[in-house]
């Protein structure tokens, strides 16, 4: 089943004025979109989002190279690296992570990752709790639940991410709170529409159903400025569930 109403690929430039602050290079290849961004302090300098199914390994480093060149930076100028941890496409996650590990190792700069569900939840506006339902393919979905925003506008996790059927995931989310929730994630685009016909469900705008690179960059910077970075060796994708055990050849 194809995706419905995904956001258009494109480039985003939110701030023309460069502010002081650390410079982060941020990537996300957890979905069919290839996303790269440069964040300087609280300002997003530039972000590219392109539809690149099955070609992340070919396209990611050229995209980073282009992004840096456009903004007049070199890798040595980057103070740290941010990445979307998933869950999502296994190969896509590893393309970004192998690249970011190499760049962080080579530059001896710190790195950090943000779970995809945290990016989705932070993207969605409104005062309702947010349920995330991510298409895990093969008839499965990842689900996670976040609270309504607190006084500072932050959503707290209520249910950690788990794998299951889309129906089971949705039931899990609905059971996590009593009132209505906003639902976001790629399953909203790929699962049958009738699955979401419930009076307590409000679907987020279609453009938020995949991790938003601008939100990811902002969250990475917030954590970076709090010193919540990790070593290259400890940077690890979020896979969720047991790995598929298919033996190679004999």
């Amino acid at each position, binding site marked *: 089943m194809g995706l419905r109403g995904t956001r258009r690929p494109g480039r985003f430039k939110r701030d023309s004025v460069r502010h002081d602050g650390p410079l982060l290079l941020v990537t996300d290849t957890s979905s069919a979109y290839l996303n790269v961004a440069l964040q300087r302090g609280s300002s997003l300098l530039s972000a590219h989002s392109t539809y690149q199914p099955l070609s992340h*390994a*070919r*396209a*990611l*480093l*050229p995209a*980073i*190279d282009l992004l840096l060149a456009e903004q007049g930076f070199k*890798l040595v100028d980057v103070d740290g690296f941010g990445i979307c941890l998933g869950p999502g496409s*296994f*190969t896509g996650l*590893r*393309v970004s*992570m*192998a*690249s*970011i*590990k*190499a*760049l962080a*190792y*080579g*530059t001896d700069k710190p790195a950090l990752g943000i779970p995809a569900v945290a990016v989705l939840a932070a993207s969605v506006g409104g005062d309702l709790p947010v349920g995330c339902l991510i298409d895990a393919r093969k008839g499965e979905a990842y689900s996670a639940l976040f609270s309504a925003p607190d006084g500072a506008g932050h959503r707290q996790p209520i249910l950690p991410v788990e794998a299951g059927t889309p129906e089971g995931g949705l039931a899990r989310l609905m059971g996590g709170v009593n009132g209505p929730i906003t639902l976001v994630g790629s399953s909203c685009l790929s699962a049958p529409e009738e699955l979401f016909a419930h009076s307590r469900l409000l679907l987020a705008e279609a453009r938020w159903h995949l991790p938003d690179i601008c939100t990811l960059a902002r969250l990475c910077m917030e954590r970076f400025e709090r010193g919540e970075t990790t070593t*290259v*060796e400890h940077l*690890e*994708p979020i*896979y969720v569930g047991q*790995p*598929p*055990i*298919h*033996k*190679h*050849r*004999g």
Partner: protein
Amino acid sequence: MSDYLLGIESSCDETAAAVITADGKILANVISSQIPLHARYGGVIPELASRNHLMSVSAVVRQALSEAGVSLGDVGRIAATRGPGLLGALMVGLQFAKGLAMQSGAELVAVHHVEGHITAILLEEGGEHPHGPLTFPYVALAVSGGHTSLYLVSAPGRYRVLGVTLDDAAGEAFDKVARVLGLPYPGGVEIDRLARQGDVGAIAFPRPLKGKQNLDFSFSGLKTAVKLYHDNLTAAGQPIPAADIAASFQEAVVDVLLRKSFAAAHLNGVQDVVISGGVAANSRLRTRMTELAPQAGLKGHLTRPILCTDNAAMIAGAGRFNLPLERAARLSIEPFASGQLV
């Protein structure tokens, strides 16, 4: 090319990094094996391999540079395995190498895994030469769990394929026969060990494609013959002479490998024959090569055991013989799962 090369290998179940000098001296050769991870499944699980490579690659590279006493900035060329192998596994090592090259400005070379095997012996102290020094051209047998091929090596970087396996690789046959005999994974080492207690002539297993003009291999029939022999004994309620089966099977494989390698040398007017790849660590193959090559009027050469199994020193070594990738390709090159070295 600067004085130092960094090699990265991740084609199957070993994450490896090595540092060598431009003249082939190995300064560090670090291998992180995943065998314990896959042993419980009796074979390599590609998804587990990819995940493990991702978590090991930076530490392995860090250790190799540290052991060599070389900084990344001193590395003038990075050589990484591009294929053949498991795509997801290859991608991790190659993408890491691309990122390092992008950051450091080092040249990047994409290496065919088999080229690494058949030229590992060209590294300093890369092999044992019981019949005298190695000279070009030579015939190289690359024999492992994923490959069984014969090459004519005219010079570094100049190769011609002479024969390939038409079905299973020899190492694959070792693993499958080990499974029939109830031996743990990886089977090659276990068969080698068990065979020492057995009689190599106890069972007359077939020697497939034994025509002198045919340089291709086939091990599927041999593997099936072993299984049938085992199953027939089991059905008859007779004891299984596991050591004799292991020894006789191994002897059949060794016999075919050496017979084809020697025929390839004779057909091409070559004096020197090299064995390489994981199965080249087999003790019986090494012994018989040393014994039989002179009888065939040839010089046998044995790749050092540590350079027979998958490693990155051989990838760095082969990286000396290839042109570096141009700028666009060094950022965008992708791995491949299959394809002969030509």
